[in-house]
């Protein structure tokens, strides 16, 4: 990305094609969710249960990590722990060398996006190929996902036609069904030739040592079945205690994400192929990734961000995401959930505007299937940003302004006088447009460039007195 956040956001706002793509796709996803939830009377009960289970698991994460590890090992899984992106890349690179592997098929994983795994592997001269259609498109385009569940949401069929012609050398094809066939046939060859399959994980199941992965296309099944080696990369927070808890989470995930009662495929994988089984990978590695998660864990007030099951519902319902889209967020996680986890992973000073990119309308919290209180977390982060700025001596004027405001508000007489002065000095309905020189150049310039101030007429107190008098 180039330019300041304001510039790139402006470019998105004036791009009508992009605005249409974001608007229609998020509206469709939101509609599908609404329709699907209409047939789930126990929805609220499931949300509460999901929240309780996640809270319990996160509060006892150490126990469940160890339980998971020992159960996974008992089924022949090789559990790999990784502190950060480098350690994951080093592990895969080392594994590739040992196995003489080069071609790697990948299924969609936000966790691998988070650690830029493709770039890191390509750097080692490995060939990672994304196999989810949307991920494949953005990999060809050299971009990052636009949306947690619909990575190529911003691409039209015409963009895809150009991209396939340019990168795959196929005749230009604008029919979506035929484009899908092209991707299928290219990727089918890759699946059958690949040495390693890398997937993410939607859930780590502690009592089974299993990973659960959901999808619609079948590319995850192929990734985890066709190559001899399967590597699943999961953030440590993906843990749930029992296989039986899927009865809660799967019902919420599919419906919240794409409006499906269940996605087309759900894979529950416990270890590599067993002796009597006919096919499947000979080796299964599960990478447990920290990459900042234990730091979030330490924050009692905000650790609930780790409950997220990456359904994307908060994006589809966010008035900010629906205008600025996914690429204006500074990291792979966009939308409200991105606005709360990015500052926590990267530090609030990194992108201090992010927690403010919200109208606090509350829609994200309302649709969250695991009841993460996203609006509250945004406010907490705003407080942190201010504290951080104060520490660095920034934002003095703003703090002074609010201190004055607070003082005035605590002194009714002075407040009343101030209101009288304002309505006397600025009697016009559209006083701000009449007084451009006054505020248009001061510290409020940026704020006012996007807002109309309310007309200043009679104050509430004046109206109150007048009406009481009239009523008498």
């Amino acid at each position: 990305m180039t330019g300041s956040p304001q510039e790139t956001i402006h470019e998105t706002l004036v791009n009508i094609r992009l605005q249409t793509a974001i608007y229609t796709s998020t509206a469709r996803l939101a509609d599908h969710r609404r329709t699907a939830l209409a047939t789930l009377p126990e929805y609220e009960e499931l949300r509460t249960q999901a929240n309780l289970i996640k809270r319990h698991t996160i509060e006892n994460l150490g126990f469940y990590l160890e339980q998971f590890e020992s159960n996974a090992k008992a089924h022949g899984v090789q559990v790999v722990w990784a502190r950060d992106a480098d350690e994951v890349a080093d592990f895969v690179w080392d594994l590739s060398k040992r196995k003489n592997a080069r071609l790697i098929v990948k299924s969609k994983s936000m966790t691998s996006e988070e650690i830029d795994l493709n770039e890191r592997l390509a750097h080692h001269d490995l060939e990672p190929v994304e196999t989810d259609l949307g991920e494949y498109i953005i990999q060809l385009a050299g971009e990052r996902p636009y949306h947690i569940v619909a990575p190529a949401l911003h691409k039209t069929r015409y963009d895809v036609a150009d991209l396939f012609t340019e990168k795959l050398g196929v005749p230009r094809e604008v029919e979506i069904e035929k484009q899908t066939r092209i991707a299928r046939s290219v990727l089918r060859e890759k699946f059958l030739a690949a040495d390693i399959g890398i997937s993410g994980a939607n859930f780590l199941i502690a009592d089974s040592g299993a990973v659960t992965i959901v999808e619609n296309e079948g590319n995850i099944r192929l990734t985890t079945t066709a190559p001899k080696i399967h590597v699943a990369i999961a953030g440590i927070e993906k843990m749930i205690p029992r296989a039986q808890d899927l009865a809660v989470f799967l019902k919420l995930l599919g419906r919240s994400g794409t409006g499906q009662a269940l996605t087309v495929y759900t894979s529950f994988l416990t270890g590599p192929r067993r002796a009597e089984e006919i096919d499947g990978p000979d080796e299964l590695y599960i990478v447990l990734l920290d990459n900042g998660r234990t730091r979030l864990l330490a924050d009692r007030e905000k650790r609930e961000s780790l409950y997220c099951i990456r359904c994307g519902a908060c994006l589809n319902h966010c008035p900010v995401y629906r205008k600025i889209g996914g690429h204006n967020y500074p990291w792979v996680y966009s939308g409200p959930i991105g606005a709360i986890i990015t500052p926590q992973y990267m530090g609030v000073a990194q992108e201090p505007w992010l927690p403010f990119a919200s109208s606090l309308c509350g829609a994200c919290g309302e649709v969250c299937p695991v009841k993460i209180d996203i609006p509250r977390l945004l406010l907490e982060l705003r407080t942190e940003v201010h504290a951080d700025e104060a520490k660095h001596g920034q934002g003095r004027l703003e703090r002074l302004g609010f201190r004055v405001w607070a003082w005035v508000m605590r002194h009714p007489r002075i407040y009343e006088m101030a209101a009288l002065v304002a309505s006397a000095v600025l009697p016009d309905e559209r006083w701000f447009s009449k007084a451009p020189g006054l505020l248009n150049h001061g510290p409020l310039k940026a704020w006012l460039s996007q807002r109309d101030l309310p007309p200043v007429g009679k104050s509430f107190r004046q109206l109150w007195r007048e009406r009481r008098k009239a009523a008498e």
Partner: protein
Amino acid sequence: MTARDDILKRAREALGGGFEQPAAPPKARIVVPEIPREARIEPFFRAITNLAGKAYLAKSFADAREYVVALIGDGPAVASNSPLLAECGIADLPGVRAGFKDPEALRQACASAAFGITSAEYALADTGTLVMLASVEEARMISLLPPVHIAIIPRVRILTGLDELLWMVPQPGLSTSSMVFITGPSRTADIEQILVRGVHGPGEIHVLVI
């Protein structure tokens, strides 16, 4: 310090503990509705049809075989090692290859087959789902690589839904390395949110209940 010990140490410090056996997690929420076996077929078929799958109630093994013959013609098809398919006389139909033990040979056959024929361990009535367990009888590839999947399942194997499955099989990993739910044909909506069926998995699915 190994990455493992380091991560566990950080988690321990972050949580101020959190490593001891915790108080029991919230009780698992498993709610199994009481629906008689006969009454499960209709909602199961409706769910499959809604997903653009085909559902057929076979009166007998021979009837199932007729359905398959009419559908696959000369094939090529690959059938799983399920005894049910042998009983139906499907495994030895012309154009059908079955009895694979070697993964590589199976993979070659599936990659060029037009039809994959399997049984399923269970079906879930409310979502129209097939529950596939990898075993000596069922391979993973047959329901995955060919563009058309045909599954044959005895009527008694239809469960009410996910809750009943997890109630009966609370730890799937004890019996198989791979439990896969198949809910309709493979699909995507990654370009313009327009639905396309048959991306990497089968675009067509036929479920025969005997």
